[in-house]
């Protein structure tokens, strides 16, 4: 079908929020043909129904902050842009829940909720990210140690399937076991099972007081030892982070939240525990919760069982081992670390590092995923690595998106 006829069909379905794609709309070098920016679930459903009729491959885009994560789509016709699908549908402060549209920016939502001294307890590792993006990639930051990740806070979803059918799962009460928990299924699915248009979340009160207790460490091994000491104590930290730069000392930071009196007492206890040269601040240290890489760099996510974190830090964090300027940062209290390497680094060496990181994380019961990388690195590594249960995952994908039109190839195993 000629391009303009396709555009006409999409517009007939969804009205004017459909346009021809431009060069800027390409995803990891794969050009798109059209961009649709629906304003509500009904319009999004109309777009996806038309896309199904026209056999268009669709990739969802929110703030675009993680569009390069995962493999580029094997096929791309239509970008479904969620930025107009924004706004808070409901904030029931007394029930500590909110329902928001997927394109709502996390920072905008935070400002709204702060009015009631509440929060969606998710860190935004990249400024400009949306609720939908956080759900699709299931990303969270340091405070996940206490609050979990999007999948833990999500209590309901409105989903538009690949065939344009609108479905709901969960609801807007925190405690609910009616029906399958499809919210879990779409959290972290990278938009390969459907479009989330609205999400309901459990909220938390904003803490009355916070303290960031930080201490330098000579190297990754000492940082790991300090982190283990904190875990063994009765501090109940909201976050326990380590940062290991390519050169210079490492840092361990403990975030404590609570009542003013409680936080002051716990911060004192943390200071005694960590020993000399410990600082206490009410603001986060530089780079707190930020991913240790920039656009065009290589970014890895490494996971491990908690007992494996010290060895992982020592093995991967030993900068000179790979002769690469590696920056390591993450949640030592959870078993999630992020590693960044400059985009200019030799791709062969980066590929070798990924291989050795994969062996190290596998030995610790975890995984190494290459979230983003420049082309030459992507050519040399499997971004996702080996995954258990892949056959079942393929069967889920086939049921939800039998024509493989939603971000085809982006996800694990080429899903």
């Amino acid at each position: 079908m000629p391009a303009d006829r396709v555009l006409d069909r999409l517009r007939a379905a969804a009205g004017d929020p459909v346009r021809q794609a431009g060069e800027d709309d390409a995803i990891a070098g794969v050009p798109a043909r059209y961009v649709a920016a629906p304003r509500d679930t009904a319009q999004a459903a109309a777009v996806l129904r038309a896309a199904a009729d026209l056999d268009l491959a669709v990739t969802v885009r929110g703030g675009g902050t993680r569009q390069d994560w995962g493999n580029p789509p094997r096929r791309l016709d239509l970008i479904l842009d969620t930025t107009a699908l924004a706004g808070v549908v409901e904030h029931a402060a007394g029930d500590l829940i909110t329902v928001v549209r997927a394109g709502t920016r996390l920072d905008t939502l935070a400002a709204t909720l702060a009015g009631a001294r509440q929060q969606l307890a998710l860190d935004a590792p990249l400024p400009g990210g949306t609720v939908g993006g956080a759900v699709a990639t299931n990303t969270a930051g340091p405070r996940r140690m206490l609050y979990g990740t999007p999948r833990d806070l999500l209590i309901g979803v409105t989903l538009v399937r690949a065939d344009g059918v609108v479905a709901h799962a969960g609801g807007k009460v925190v405690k609910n076991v009616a029906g399958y928990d499809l919210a879990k299924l779409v959290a972290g699915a990278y938009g390969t099972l459907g479009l989330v248009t609205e999400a309901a979340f459990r909220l938390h009160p904003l803490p009355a007081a916070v303290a960031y207790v930080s201490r330098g460490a000579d190297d990754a091994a000492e940082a790991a030892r300090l982190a283990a000491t904190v875990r063994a104590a009765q501090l109940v930290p909201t976050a326990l982070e380590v940062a290991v730069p390519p050169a210079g000392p490492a840092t361990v930071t403990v975030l404590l939240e609570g009542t003013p009196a409680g936080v002051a007492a716990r911060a004192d206890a943390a200071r005694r525990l960590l020993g000399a040269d410990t600082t206490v601040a009410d603001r986060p240290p530089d780079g707190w919760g930020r991913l240790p890489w920039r656009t065009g760099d290589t970014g890895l996510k490494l996971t491990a069982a908690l007992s494996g974190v010290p060895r992982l830090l020592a093995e991967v964090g030993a900068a000179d081992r790979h002769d690469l300027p590696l920056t390591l940062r993450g949640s030592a209290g959870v078993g999630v670390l992020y590693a960044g390497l400059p985009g200019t680094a030799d791709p062969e060496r980066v590929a070798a590092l990924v291989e050795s990181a994969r062996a190290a994380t596998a030995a610790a019961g975890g995984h190494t995923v290459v979230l983003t990388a420049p082309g030459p690195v992507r050519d040399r590594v499997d971004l996702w690595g080996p995954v258990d249960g892949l056959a079942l995952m393929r069967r889920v994908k086939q049921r939800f998106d039998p024509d493989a039109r939603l971000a085809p190839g982006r996800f694990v195993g080429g899903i």
Partner: protein
Amino acid sequence: MSTTTTDIEALAAALRAAIGAERVISDRQELRTYECDGLAQYKVVPALVALPDDAAQCAAVVRACVAAGAPFVARGSGTGLSGGALPHADGVLIVTSRMREIIEIAPEDERAVVQPGVINLAISRAAHPHGRYYAPDPSSQQICSIGGNVAENSGGAHCLKYGFTTHHVTGLEVVTPDGERVRLGGRAPDTPGYDLLGAFIGSEGTLGIATEVTVRLTRLPESVRTLLAAFETTDQAGAATSAIIAAGVVPAAVEMMDALAISAAEAAVHCGYPAGAGAVLIVELDGPAPEVDAQFAQVEAFCRDNRAFEIRIAADDAERALFWKGRKSAFAAVGRISPDYIVQDGVIPRTALPEVLRRIGDLSAERGIRVANVFHAGDGNLHPLVLFDAAVEGQAERAEEVSGAILDLCVRHGGSITGEHGVGVDKAKFLPRMFTDDDLDTMHLLRCAFDPAGLANPGKVFPTPRLCGEIPRRRTGVHPAQQAGLAEAF
């Protein structure tokens, strides 16, 4: 489905060959002991019972079922309250009671690895020497199995602060409905790929059987403080709860009982709650001592501000246990004041509590059916106990009506038909009150991915039988993008 005696005998022989005759029950009298779970109003005698020792045997049983085209139902301790483990007359009931090994307590990983038949409380007991415990605490935790908790996504009194089973299980080994053993999740967080672990937990045995469970072990809190406050009315107790939540306090638990529930508990366990109370509130805070001390004073003040006429503070673990004794015995206790009763489980947005309680009171008065109320007040999970006497003509039907009307109230207020007991066989008919056909069809896509033949716990969760059908064929033509060299076929 019509199954002949010959079919069953052939299946029994296959099971005996696969796992040993001593692990297969086919005697009618013995089978009868498995005819119901914790919801005794539904009874079905299974064709066969299998009692595997381990995952390999469990998989062998499922494969035998697949070969015979026979349905299977998993059962842990049989304490479920929605009939989720109700047997299938033509199928095999797979009982996990011989799979009771605690495989590993790994405090340095903050994890335990256990077989599915392990009792919930046994995990906490085993972890206790390491200063840790397993947080989800359903009322039946002394007898319910972790496998059953996984199937139901069980909660408990302390899930207001700590969450449900789904937040505390990090890995599973499951036997899929085609008899394969698959690992989902693990000891490390964020396993790449779809969160099939999250989808499996709470699927009520319809996506397979968990054969190994990896759970998070939580640090025992430094301090636990509990108070019991007595109010004249449930509205006052509700207002105190609202004040606590509005102040940004997240208690470990907030539990409420109304006058009828209190009198039942008194009759059964003599818990000595304050006389004349129209409502009691149990509030428990836990965590670092300085935080608990600061917030406990606030909670006490909120109770007084909302006209609590008596506040007791637990001096020690023994007194705390006494506070909880009345609450935890409440379901069974109503047996003392009524020959028959229905335990209902619904959820409302917490702020709707006063209105919903008034409506429940109206319903009760209109139909002449008493309702005792017990609830997790912090998260709006109601457990109305609908009392009746089956010997009185028409009472059972009226009680059913009241019970159903309460669920309608929950749905109308934006809540749920079940907060922790599950849909099972009992509430399948209510599911369409919460979800559209499209919603249910979409959920069913997941079921079809796991169980296209529909052998795993059929007849549960979904209100009407749904067939999976073939996966629609992919488009076979060459796509324009492929032609243009922009993409390759998958």
